[in-house]
């Protein structure tokens, strides 16, 4: 199906139109329960994200990169992943964490400034967030190589923004993936901005998806505000990866509704009108319309979803804030497998300093 949408011809996969109707022939055939589950994940993502912004303004959370507007990308992709698959995220993946069962309390704990938020719980195949842009991409390919070597029928997914596609590591990673036909899914959330730099400044290529051609594997551009389109493309790319048919590049065309982070002010470089235009394409709105058309959404259901989301979020905040800060030992103990003598001396010195009541 992916091959029917040629990025070099400017073709983009969308399944839901803006009234929530399905394009004939492209219904991915998800069960009602799954459709509602997807919607609930998107609602939780929106709520968790809004809460994070509130917490940041209150000084209870540090600098934070909001995910508003990316829910279809994040939830659509993650909903197609299996527990055995691996994720090498970037830093704006909240909906993937929520969908795949990464505790929200851990996520908040990280953005509150604690390394333990990066300690992926056992049994979850998440590499930690990547702040150096695109650096996770070759790493994801290495994991794909390892999966091949171990004959594991899994996919290794990595997410990144449009800015990342200008980095050398994007090129090196995808190039390796093509050469070795690794079981990777490269998912680009093209939200039109890398902080203030617009997408047109990242590359002269008409699309990001077409860069896959240069690496010898398929690329497809999808409507990133259409959760069913994202899900359909992801499902196929993941199946290709798991079955040995090699990697895929998916470019999800979406929009960063919020600022780059809470330290940014997007009003400095884009217009209110542009943002309002994208509000009309809100991923939750469109999917809600679709569910309503199928008789799966009404005001009663919506209230239940929102109430559940609030409870989910508040519980996570309480848990995150109840966790203790790192002890001095924690700062030293994980530098090496075994602490070298010099580090022991430095830790002892710090503890002595603290013991004097100084900081």
């Amino acid at each position: 199906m992916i091959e029917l949408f040629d990025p070099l011809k400017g073709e983009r996969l969308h399944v839901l139109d803006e009234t929530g109707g399905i394009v004939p022939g492209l219904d991915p055939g998800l069960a009602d329960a799954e459709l509602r589950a997807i919607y609930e994940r998107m609602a939780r993502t929106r709520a968790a994200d809004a809460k994070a912004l509130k917490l940041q303004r209150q000084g209870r959370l540090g600098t934070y990169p909001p995910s508003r507007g990316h829910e279809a990308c994040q939830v659509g992709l993650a909903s197609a992943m299996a527990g055995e698959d691996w994720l090498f995220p970037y830093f704006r993946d909240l909906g993937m964490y929520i969908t795949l069962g990464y505790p929200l309390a851990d996520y908040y704990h990280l953005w509150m400034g604690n390394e333990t938020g990066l300690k992926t719980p056992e049994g979850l195949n998440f590499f930690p967030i990547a702040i150096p842009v695109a650096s996770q991409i070759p790493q994801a390919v290495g994991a794909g190589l390892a999966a091949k070597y171990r004959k594991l029928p899994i996919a290794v997914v990595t997410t990144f923004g449009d800015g990342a596609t200008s980095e050398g590591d994007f090129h090196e990673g995808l190039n390796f993936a093509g050469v070795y036909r690794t079981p990777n899914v490269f998912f680009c959330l093209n939200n039109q901005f890398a902080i203030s730099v617009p997408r047109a400044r990242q590359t002269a290529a008409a699309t990001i998806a077409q860069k896959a051609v240069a690496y010898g594997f398929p690329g497809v551009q999808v409507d990133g505000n259409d959760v069913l389109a994202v899900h359909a493309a992801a499902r196929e790319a993941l199946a290709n990866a798991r079955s040995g048919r090699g990697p895929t590049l998916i470019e999800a065309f979406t929009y960063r509704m919020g600022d780059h982070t809470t330290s940014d002010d997007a009003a400095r470089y884009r217009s209110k009108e542009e943002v309002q235009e994208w509000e009309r394409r809100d991923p939750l709105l469109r999917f809600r319309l679709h569910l309503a058309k199928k008789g799966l959404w009404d005001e009663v259901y919506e209230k239940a979803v929102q109430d559940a989301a609030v409870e989910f979020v508040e519980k996570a905040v309480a848990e995150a804030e109840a966790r203790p800060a790192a002890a001095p030992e924690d700062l030293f103990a994980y530098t090496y497998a075994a602490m070298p003598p010099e580090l022991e001396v430095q830790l002892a010195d710090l503890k002595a300093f603290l013991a004097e009541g100084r900081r």
Partner: protein
Amino acid sequence: MIMTMVQAINRALAQEMERDDRIIVLGEDVGRDGGVFRTTEGLLERFGPERVMDTPLAESGIIGASIGMTALGLRPVPEIQFMGFIYPAFNQIVSHVARLRNRTRGRFTVPLTIRAPYGAGVKALEHHSESTEALFCQIPGLTVVVPSTPYDAKGLLAASLRGDDPVIFLEPAKLYRAEKQDVPEEPFEVPLRKAAIVRQGKDLTIIAWGAMVPVARKAAEAAEAEGIGAEIVDLRTLSPMDRETFVASVKKTGRALVVHEAPKTCGLGAEIAATIGESALLSLNAPVLRVTGQDITVPLPKSEDLYYPGPERVLRAIHRLMEY
């Protein structure tokens, strides 16, 4: 068995790969060609292309991919063809290799060993004679190892491959075939984080590593003929450094001299001198001297010997030390 350092490295790789199928060798030209210095010769034939991988020409990709392999439990041994080409991978090394254990509180560790030919003195092309080990020693979480003999190369490499920390294993190109030594055939480890006293002496301590160890030896022999006894400490692991061994030696001799190829300023000699000042000041009869490359770019072959420390410059420093 008599072997060169190249053969010792080759042996160690083959033996460790035999006992641990998690070990993967990857890099440019490591497979079919056996490595441009032949250190990986025969490994492709023995272990196959899934375990000995000729990669595209992409250092950041090679190290990044190696990191990803460790996430799924493998223990890769990526080769960077010359230390001069490690810089594209510096981001992956500093931002990730060094700090993944810490930032994930031990959930992800990076048991890989990066191997690279290192150092000058082989009249190589531009950029092929780097000794920028200090850059890596400054990064918490990295282990930096430099063997100076075939025996140490075999044992230190085995220890690096078996350990759970990421290691930067720098192989002095000048010593690859300089010395043949009788080295045990069977697998053995030389401990990391332990310096070795390779020559005993009572008058001064020379601290050196890699190709500067034989240089120090030649100077020490000349000094011996003049009645000066030089002790030589081969650091072997540059980071985390074994301070105890050289501090104890300096407390005994009262004089210290560091010899390294790398440029003087902010080289490891500075760290060693500071340590000696902190821990053995009252034992010193002279300042800690350093014989090093100057603060210049490594010259091209025709002028390399103006930069590269040789026994004469070391002997001059020994005389200066003894005059205090």
